[in-house]
């Protein structure tokens, strides 16, 4: 029994000690000063946290899921404006996401947390008449949501307009509204995870221009230019207009469609050239390019095809190129460093999904990438891209970010280091040159080969052959004429007529024969065996024909009285001659082909 009492006492003492020590070490927040800015299309929440004297190695920030979904960026600075490292913890809780800030030293007592939210301003009502004002609705916690107890805190909300309506205004403690500002608090002794919310509706005629998906593709090259190609898919998430879009009202009265976006501005580097502005159906002619201006670079003013009123979507691309020497640096020994800007060139909107793609030259190895802003991207993977003259394809680094507010300041650059062999650099140049050279060499070889085969080195030979050819053409024509003449000799024919017709043809043939002999002699003297055979064969054909003709003449002259048999003979003759002619023509064609 006594033992039990002793044990109980010991337990009591130990637990008391524990309580005391924990009370001494308890991490509490002395003061929170929160400012919410609602004047833009995204929401900036700045929280100044004053920590108590306890030992703070880390500071936890928690975001309820709904808030986390619209969270674009968290940045934590210490009292001397140095950025602190923020790490996202693994999703352990279903309804919350946790970030851990690593505090550098124990002496730190003030921390500034800046978080940007997008897509958390909703038009209310969602559909308004064409000439009405747009009201936006915003919801947040009355007290800053944190896992620590807070001694005192207050909130200031900046509105763009003095038309402000809090829902259930009377239920909100310590609320005061003056002009364009509203104050909540100060609240004393706020327990951890206090989840009271407020909702506010305020007048704000701003287009809620949102990039549904923005893809920025960079193609780096060692041959002078870096290509940049950005594709945008935009939506104006402002209040929709009731009853469609009236061009007349839009053109004639500025009171209508106050939440419209007609154009946006893209800021390009001052060296940008060959700027294009297109969409899926072609060029868009309504744009202006200004600059280059020393401080701002070039400014490209892009007018949309149609004004973007509430609820409307649009998609387009812009492209340009910049000299790559500004972004590409050689580190020696085939090492190269590429430095690219992270945000896209149009920054006057919020982006739901941002994809940055960087194509490295074909054959890049040992790729290392690094970016100065911590947690700038959510996801990173590699793809292969096939571009001009790519055989293996080039590495495409893809960086993805959900929710992005591409304001000018807070984006650093992405640094990629890689190794590229000399051969890979030259390959692109040598490949087409080699191809053309090989092609020419082949052509030349083929033509030379065929020349040799044709044995056409002497121009006179060619001339001879062409003459031979033309002569045989003439012969062939004479035969055709002869056949034609004889076949027209139908009906009663006088012997004189017949013989005169024959002699006419015969004299022609004689003359041609003489020439043919002369030519054959010349060919024989040229000493080309192939031609001699060709010429001989042709002569043989010719002789055969002539013989047929002569034989027929001698036999038919006597039969002139018997017309029917004559007709039959003519038929036979023309058939014979036709056959021979076909042969001759075949020869001629062969020669022609050779010529």
């Amino acid at each position, binding site marked *: 029994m006594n033992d039990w009492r002793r044990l109980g006492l010991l337990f009591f003492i130990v637990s008391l000690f524990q309580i005391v020590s924990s009370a001494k070490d308890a991490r509490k927040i002395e003061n929170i000063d929160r400012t919410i800015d609602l004047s833009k299309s995204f929401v900036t929440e700045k929280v100044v946290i004053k920590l108590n004297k306890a030992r703070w190695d880390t500071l936890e920030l928690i975001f309820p899921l709904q808030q986390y979904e619209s969270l674009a960026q968290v940045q934590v600075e210490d009292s001397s404006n140095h950025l602190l490292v923020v790490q996202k913890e693994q999703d352990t809780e279903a309804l919350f996401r946790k970030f851990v800030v690593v505090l550098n030293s124990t002496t730190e007592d003030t921390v500034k947390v800046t978080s940007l939210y997008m897509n958390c301003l909703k038009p209310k009502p969602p559909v308004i008449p064409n000439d009405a004002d747009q009201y936006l609705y915003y919801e947040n916690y009355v007290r800053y949501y944190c896992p620590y107890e807070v001694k005192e805190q207050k909130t200031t909300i900046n509105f763009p307009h003095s038309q402000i309506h809090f829902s259930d205004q009377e239920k909100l403690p310590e609320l005061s509204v003056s002009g364009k500002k509203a104050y909540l608090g100060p609240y004393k002794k706020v327990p951890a995870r206090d989840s009271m919310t407020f909702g506010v509706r305020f007048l704000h005629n701003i287009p809620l221009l949102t990039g549904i998906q923005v893809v920025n593709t960079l193609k780096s090259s060692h041959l002078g230019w870096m290509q940049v190609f950005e594709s945008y898919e935009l939506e104006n998430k402002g209040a929709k207009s009731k009853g469609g879009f009236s061009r007349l009202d839009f053109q004639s009265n500025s009171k209508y469609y106050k939440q419209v976006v007609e154009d946006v501005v893209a800021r390009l580097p001052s060296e940008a050239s060959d700027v294009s502005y297109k969409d899926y159906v072609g060029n868009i002619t309504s744009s202006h390019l200004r600059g280059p201006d020393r401080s701002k670079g070039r400014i490209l003013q892009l007018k949309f095809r149609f004004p973007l009123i509430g*609820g409307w979507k*649009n998609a387009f691309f812009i492209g340009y190129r910049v000299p790559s020497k500004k972004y590409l640096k050689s580190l020696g020994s085939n090492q190269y460093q590429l430095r690219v800007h992270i945000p896209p060139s149009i920054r006057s909107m919020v982006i739901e999904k941002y994809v940055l793609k960087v194509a490295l030259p074909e054959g890049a190895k040992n790729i290392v990438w690094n970016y100065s802003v911590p947690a700038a991207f959510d996801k990173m993977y590699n793809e292969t891209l096939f*571009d001009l003259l790519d055989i293996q394809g080039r590495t495409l680094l893809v960086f993805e970010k959900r929710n992005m507010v591409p304001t000018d300041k807070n984006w650093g650059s992405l640094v990629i280091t890689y190794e590229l062999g000399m051969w890979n650099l030259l390959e692109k140049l040598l490949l087409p040159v080699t191809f053309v050279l090989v092609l020419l060499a082949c052509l030349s070889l083929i033509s030379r080969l065929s020349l040799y085969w044709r044995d056409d080195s002497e121009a006179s030979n060619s001339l001879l052959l062409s003459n031979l050819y033309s002569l045989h053409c003439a012969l062939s024509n004479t035969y055709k004429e002869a056949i034609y003449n004889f076949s027209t000799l139908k009906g009663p024919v006088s012997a004189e007529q017949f013989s005169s017709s024959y002699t006419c043809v015969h004299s*022609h043939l004689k003359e041609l024969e003489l*020439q043919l002999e002369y*030519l054959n002699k010349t060919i024989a003297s040229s000493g080309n065996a192939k031609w001699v055979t060709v010429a001989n064969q042709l002569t043989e054909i010719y002789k055969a024909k002539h013989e047929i003709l002569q034989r027929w003449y001698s036999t038919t002259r006597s039969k002139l009285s018997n017309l029917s048999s004559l007709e039959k003979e003519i038929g036979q003759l023309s058939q014979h001659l036709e056959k021979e002619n076909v042969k001759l023509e075949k020869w001629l064609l062969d020669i022609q082909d050779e010529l």
Partner: protein
Amino acid sequence: MKKNAVGMQTQPFVNYTKTIWLSTKQQQLLFRFAVLLIACCVSFCIRLFAVIRYESIIHEFDPWFNFRATKVLVEQGTFEFWNWFDSASWYPLGRIVGGTVYPGIMYTAATIYHILRALTFPVDIKDVCVMMAPLFSCFTNIVTYFFTKQVSDPTAGLFAACFIAMVPGYLSRSVAGSYDNECVAITAMILCFFLIVKSVHTGSLFWSGLTCLAYLYMVASWGGYVFITNIYPIYVLVLILCGRYSHRLYVAYSTFYVIGTLLSMQIRFVGFQAVQSSEHMGALIVFVLLQCYCFVNWIRYLVPRDVFVTISRIFLLVVGTMFILAAFLATATGYLGPWTGRFYSLLDPTYASKHIPIIASVAEHQPTAWGSYFFDLHILSMLVPAGIYFCFRNINDGVIFLILYGSFAAYFAGVMVRLMLVLAPAACVLSGIAFSKLLVPNVTQLRKWEQNTEQTGHDARTTYKRVESKLSGSKKSAKSLETSHDSGWMKVLIYILLGGSMLVLFAYARHCVWVASEAYSQPSVVLSARTSLGERVFFDDFREAYYWLRYNTKQDAKILSWWDYGYQISGFANRTVIVDNNTWNNSHIATVGRVLNSPERKAFQICKKLDVDYVLVIFGGALGYSSDDINKFLWPIRISHSVDPTVDESAYLTADGNYRVGEGAGPALVESLMYKLCYYRFGEVQFDRGNPAGYDKVRGEVIAKKKFKLRYFEEAFTSRNWLVRIYHVKDLPNIG
């Protein structure tokens, strides 16, 4: 362009230039190659006006469908394309695209695209499609050269190639961006002609087989293949009647008919039409006739004359009876299809306007005006008769084909504006022959005088000339050429002739360039005009509105518009359309016409039945764009009248029968949906300082009814210059 004209002229001179390192033959080859190359370059470049002035964009209407189909082919592959059922057009019927399309051009583009990709050139399919027409015009040059060389001589071929490089009649359909069937089909057609002539000249199976392949390509690319299907049998018939029948012809045609028909049946759109429809019957009849003729010839050799006469009589009687019987049976059983309206309108130009308003409503189906012959052919229209004359002077089988082709093409071009395209190559070839026959002998003569040759007897070339001149039977001319050796005035005459033809060629080139730049290089999707300061301004309203549709309507929204814009809407906006330019269903189009010409309430009812979400109208009254829907409105009325006789055209006209929108406009017109959608709130605006509010710039009058409200439709979008107006069809009220 000048360079080209000069290039054609210098040919005879360069031909004989003595150089140390090239034989005459090689020089000739080089020269021909150079001229063809220049012609190809010219023909490619002259078609790029639209790309340079506007951008690389698909033009007009039909090319948009071809482009869309090509994208399907490239992205989804052959089988998907073959089985493609397009539910996004002709809603709710849909269209079986795979079986109702000539796929030649799509496959060609896809092949080029894949080849370029394989050669590591990552081209965009759009750019391939845009550049198809200029590319094929280069091929046309080459093929025309070979065709002309086959029927006449190489010089004429070079002339023809240079002519066709920039003839406006062909250029109109083949500028960069007009990605239409015709741009490939003309190449295929001339290739077919070349191979037909070649196969008839040689009688070789090889060339006949190639003819069949070319014919297959032609069938795959254009409905105009019927022209070849009919002209070849006619040619065969003419040759037989001229007594020029030969075994070569028999081989060529029989091969062509059997294999060609089988091949053409492989194209799904043609299929069994190739043996069933009346358009193809001519070829069959001639085929049978040719067999009979051959058979009769054979018999003639076997039997004596008197028996032959009896046999042939019996034979003819039997064949004739069988033929008539077969034709009667086929027609009665419906095996033979009826002749289509487009074919009738070829034979009778007034047929379409009497019976089929949908054919007549197309501008390019109108008969040709006289002026357009000169506009589209320029000097060629004058040179064609000369070409035909020279053809008759030097007749052979090929030339007969050319004469036939030329005369048929001339007739068809007169019937339909569109078929000027078929006439243009014929005109080029004939003019090429005319030019070469005019110039070459004279230039040769000139050279002869200059050379003052002595070795007449030994020079084989002169021998040949003499032989030729004797053979052609014109001994007189040969003599006169020799005797006029020193007559100076002949020289002057020849110089005048040369100078004159230079001038003519120069004028031709200038005209072609001017036509290409001013008349035929508009994409018609983007409009442009010049301001008073000479600056070019663009009106991009079509794309503005279509792009709006693409991104700001539901994915399955149905758009109703007059059929002209169907292809563009599905191409640009990727939305379902009710009717489009493939006018295969007359009653569907008539229904759409009925929507547009009905009063609002009735139109709304039809719209709801058709499940329409948006109605799109083209209205040019604010901008001064004259080919808008109001000006076309009589066609919707007529077409819907052909289906629904209650539509009365006279109710849309003024009391004295005129078509006006101003004071005194027809009562039905003012009440019609078209009028209301076009002029909705138009009367409230004053566009120009000088004109009153509601002044229609196209019609040049103040509209009849300025103030009205829409009950069943609401304005959804109007483009910047009011050119395209889109209305949303309101939902039915919740209660009754």
